[in-house]
């Protein structure tokens, strides 16, 4: 790799202590890189650990969560070794987040413009006058009309609230933006508007985006790199084009097959056609299978799958220079020293 990554997550392992004292391993050995200006998609079904990854990187885990191993290098600094005070100086100024439900993430009794100004002033970046100008610029950027800046969140539509959240995330000019299902509650047209906005601000400010979503279509439209997660581990990671067109992990293959492709739906037979499904359900994190986590649902399992958890192996087309890895015993064993 020529360019040093902006964010490098290495062997990240996170555990939750459940109410009954059991320990659930929500993340195990999660590694991926984000290069400056890149868009990376963290994709998987509910409970696969994609949001936990985000919360671990930001060190915003709830009280019963604990990072038990690995490192999170941001511009070379391991965020996991910082004191809470030092960490706070990175949040928002270096890494910002757009959360899923904008209504829950905004303060309902504070005007939108005031909330964004507060975010700027809290980080002591500029004086009040300059901050006011900055708020105007930000809201202009995300397309919120001047007349509506002093309104409250409940007066906004879902799409406008998400725009306000994006403006707030950009308030301190971060280098990295996490977006956790930013458009899940929105209509497709509003979703398209929000992603158009993401692309525009990325082109303008060159920031990197990590998009956390279950929507494979959104990832295909937006991302350079895809990280497919399953049961708290990375199943497959690689350039979007390779992962979508030459998926190597059986889970990725089944997941893509289960996702309807609207570009082909006009050619389906009269009366439609059944979608491919994945039998079974994802594993519970406090009762993980001993071997590969996908083994109980996998139709191509071999003996080894029940015995050991597979490591990521290089599956890139030789000479392509791409970094495409998948964790499946069928794909062979990793070479020594492989990440």
């Amino acid at each position, binding site marked *: 790799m020529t360019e040093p990554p902006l964010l490098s997550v290495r062997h990240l392992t996170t555990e939750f202590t459940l109410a009954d004292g059991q320990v659930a391993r929500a993340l195990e050995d999660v590694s991926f890189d984000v290069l400056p200006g890149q868009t990376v998609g963290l994709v998987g079904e509910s409970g696969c650990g994609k949001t936990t990854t985000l919360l671990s990187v930001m060190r915003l885990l709830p009280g019963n969560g604990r990072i038990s191993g690995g490192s999170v290098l941001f511009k070379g600094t391991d965020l996991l070794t910082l004191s809470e005070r030092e960490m706070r100086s990175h949040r928002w100024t270096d890494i910002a987040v757009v959360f899923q439900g904008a209504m829950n993430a905004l303060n309902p009794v504070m005007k939108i413009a005031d909330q964004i100004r507060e975010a700027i002033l809290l980080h002591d970046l500029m004086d009040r006058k300059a901050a006011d100008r900055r708020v105007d610029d930000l809201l202009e950027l995300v397309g919120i009309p001047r007349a509506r800046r002093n309104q409250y969140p409940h007066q906004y539509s879902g799409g406008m609230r998400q725009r306000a959240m994006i403006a707030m995330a950009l308030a301190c000019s971060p280098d990295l933006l996490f977006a956790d299902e930013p458009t899940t509650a929105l209509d497709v047209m509003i979703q398209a508007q929000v992603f158009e906005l993401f692309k525009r601000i990325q082109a303008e400010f060159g920031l990197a985006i990590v998009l956390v979503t279950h929507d494979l279509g959104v990832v*295909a439209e937006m991302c350079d790199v895809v990280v497919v997660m399953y049961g708290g581990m990375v199943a497959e990671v690689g350039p979007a084009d390779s992962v979508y067109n030459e998926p190597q992990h059986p889970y990725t293959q089944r997941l893509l097959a289960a996702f309807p492709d609207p570009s082909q739906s006009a050619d389906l037979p009269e009366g439609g056609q059944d979608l491919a499904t994945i039998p079974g359900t994802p594993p519970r994190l406090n009762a993980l299978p001993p071997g590969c986590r996908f083994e109980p649902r996998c139709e191509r399992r071999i003996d080894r799958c029940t015995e050991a958890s597979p490591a990521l192996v290089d599956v890139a087309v030789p000479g392509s220079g791409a970094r495409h890895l998948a964790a499946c015993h069928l794909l062979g064993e990793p070479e020594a020293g492989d990440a």
Partner: protein
Amino acid sequence: MSTDAILEVRHLSVEFPLRQGIGDLIHRRQPKVVMAVDDVSFSLGPGEVLALAGESGCGKTTAARTLIGLGTATRGEILFKGRRVGGDAADGPAISLKELRQRAQIVFQDPYESLNARATVLDIVAEPLVVHRLAGSAQERLERVRLALEEAGLRPADDYLKRHPHELSGGQRQRAVIASALVLAPELLLADEPVSMLDVSIRAEILNLLNALRRSRGISILFITHDLGIVGHFADRLAVMYLGRIVEIGPTRAVLHDPQHPYTRALLSVVPVPNPRLRRQRVILQGETPNPLDLPAGCRFHPRCPIAVAACRTAEPDLTTVRDAHRVACLLVAPASDADQATHDPAHHEGG
């Protein structure tokens, strides 16, 4: 009109009067009215799946709720197997609400909210039988519940009877909801965004289940969705709604292949395609759907329409046939020639 249709909707309009303040009452102002559904017509044949698609607030859910008596039609008529739902006694034989709600069932979007958290699966699925007094003995009831659960894919049924909703996954919950609809052996299922809360693999399972029910039991399904990505796998016909009106309706394949209305085209262009090589030219409509209290004059889509002409600001287009049963409400879409019209099957003549 076809006589064998399960459901026949003619010129249905649903209005909601806004609440009036004391000032409005004192000054005797006419209450303001939201036109949630405006002159909508369609029919649904036996074993047919019609998808009603559109964005939030387009009236698709209001239309569906009105069909089973969960709302009142302001104008127009709804016929369930030739008998009217609601309306005046002068308009012909009516179906009682109780009978309608036995023969037409609804599956709601959120399986986390539509199940009683304190009841067991057995209680939940048996309740419709109790309400409609359809199963005499407890034993018969249990049998019918078992059958419904198995048909909804919860097998073996005995494993699920004593469980509470919190012991079920999201997909299993939606199957339990479907089982409690199936237990009455309905002829019509209204599915209101039944998969929009579910994960990819579970979504596929539930859609396949609905498709299987249509094939094995011949249940007609009115499928309400905002996701045009899934309709091709499932629906025979597709109706696209915008601000209370059907703007395009036709055989699913015809509409997807050759969308005519600029709104349908825009909507289809923004459905994400799961292939990075197919990043397409998208038509992103700016702004949001206008306030239904303050509808634009003329074609209600014209303020956001990329190809609107002057006439669109004054004339409101009606649905016209472009080919066979494919009908579009747009001034700029040329209607079919007379020769085409002649071959047109009047049974599928629909619209407002």
